[in-house]
């Protein structure tokens, strides 16, 4: 999986709206999102859901690829601890998310842009709350810095 620059266009600061990707596991998070939809609960349109079989299937590379391509924030949403359909997929995801946060901090993208949440299929309000939370966090942090770097040569002032 190599990721050439996706050419994410730097938006003008005024028009900028956070873009957030949410990896949602099939058995809990995606079902909770579905329930939120069925109940017509409103949540920010900034988030795109990505349906995965289990958060244990989300690898470091998937999250890093999203950031390299210019996403502003990532949510990894899995079952409650102890409630994973595959027993411990969400616990593995938790460790991987922690590792990616360290990498993001080390390289200057910022680990706060990545969040893991745990919820059950019935917890639609929690899902909505967490989506709002990450969108607001990312809004405060501003755009993914990779989308706003000036091209080479234009840096010196």
């Amino acid at each position: 999986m190599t990721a050439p620059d996706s050419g994410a266009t730097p938006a003008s600061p005024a028009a900028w709206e956070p873009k957030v990707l949410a990896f949602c596991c099939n058995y809990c998070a995606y079902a909770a999102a579905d329930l939120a939809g069925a109940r017509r609960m409103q949540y920010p349109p900034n988030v795109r859901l990505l349906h995965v079989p289990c958060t244990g299937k989300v690898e470091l590379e998937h999250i890093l690829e999203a950031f390299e391509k210019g996403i502003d924030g990532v949510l990894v949403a899995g079952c409650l601890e102890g409630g994973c359909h595959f027993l411990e997929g969400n616990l593995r995801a938790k460790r991987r998310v922690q590792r990616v946060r360290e990498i993001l901090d080390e390289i200057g993208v910022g680990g706060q842009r990545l969040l893991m949440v745990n919820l059950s299929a019935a917890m639609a309000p929690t899902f909505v709350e967490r989506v709002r939370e990450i969108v607001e966090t990312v809004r405060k942090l501003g755009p993914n810095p990779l989308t706003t770097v000036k091209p080479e040569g234009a840096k010196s002032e």
Partner: protein
Amino acid sequence: MIVASPKSVTEVKEIIAAHRKVLFVGCGTCVTVCLAGGEREVGIMAYAVRMARKLEGRPIEIEQVTIERQCENEFIKDLAEAVDRNEAILSFGCGAGVQAIAERFPKKPVYAALNTQFLGILEEQGVWTEKCQACGDCMLADFGGICPVTRCAKQLLNGPCGGSTPEHCEIDNDMPCAWQLIFKRLKEIGQEDRLKKIRPPKDWRGSSHGGTRKIVRNDHRI
């Protein structure tokens, strides 16, 4: 197997700071198994370094390839074209792999992305321990298959020391005392008598103390 651990992204970035086009080379053998330098680890490091360099306003182009074994010319030679296309090589092999590549491509800078640690085994998922120091004159037969050269902190050949406890080595609470293990195992296999022999100091000349080692086996030469 040879166990290695990855250098930090920051250190790797420093090492290749002067280059704009670098070939990252993974190794498919020991360092893949110990999750330090295989195809996936190369990929993850490439993501991190590319993003970091972009943020610095000095983008880098990274080509990735993982070969079966970096310590054998037979596999290294396939890298030639990719090496030509790049300014430098970052090897994710053990120290031997890095040097084998450097010898093969004398005109290219070759750097190490890993810290090569020891000869060891996988203890449990994500945990590796050292088992052998390649001393060149194996004494395992005397010690029930447990190596005091590697696993006794003081390398005692007539242990244990006065600080030994059944639970752990006196210098590391997380490590068992090799001599307790040796005694237990020799007893289990009915060979405690081996411990009656006092061992003279080990001759270290066959180890790295005698300089770089080389093995020549005429029966295999062609």
